């Protein structure tokens, strides 16, 4: 693995997750230029246990579209964690 390939991802937080972290975003480093959402989820679970991601039914949005676990995301993507919604 090449150290020059470290990349940062910015992940937007909303609602209860934003409040838990007291932050609008998480900035994380990955060892590659991209990562699948499945890997990202596992990574976030390990890195931020206080988010409680394994307890709530979250979904990722990439560039404002709901995406499944097999999508790869990179630094230029707008990534957001969408906790269960309650608008209306």
């Amino acid at each position, binding site marked *: 693995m090449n150290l020059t390939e470290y990349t940062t991802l910015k992940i937007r937080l909303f*609602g209860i997750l934003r409040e838990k972290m007291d932050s609008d975003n998480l900035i994380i480093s990955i060892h590659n230029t991209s990562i699948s959402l499945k890997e990202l989820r596992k990574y976030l679970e390990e890195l931020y246990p206080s988010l409680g991601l394994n307890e709530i039914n979250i979904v990722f949005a990439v560039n*404002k*579209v*709901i995406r499944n676990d097999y999508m790869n995301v990179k630094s230029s993507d707008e990534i957001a964690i*969408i906790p269960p*919604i*309650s*608008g209306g």
Partner: protein
Amino acid sequence: MISTTKDTIYQTKIFDQIKDDSCGAIVSFTGLVRDHNSKGKVEGIFYEAYDEMVEEILRNIEKEVFKNWNIKKFIAVHRTGYVQVGEISVIVAVTSEHRKEAFEACSYGIENIKKRCPIWKKEKTQFGNEWIEGVKISE
């Protein structure tokens, strides 16, 4: 017209915009903050939205509505920020020549807003503030 807004939503203003002299039917759905939940009194609700994504989804819903029904105008506005009891949290209004289409399009609009828009609410109650348990967002 579709948007999220931090400002008070007035039924009158929406009605003035949705009116059209060429159309005989307006159907509107108005969601308001209720004064209670299952546990007791509610004072208001904080609405938080992923605004840019909500507006993208509202645009999609608007396209779907115009594709599926022969309607003239469509308005969908969702409040964000603190909304007091009795204030409007969301409004969907449809103008068409025929009432059946207006009813169907309006119902489709609010159902899809509830299912697809990344919006979260936290109730302000006598016991403090609490995030409302939501449902998994639909694509």
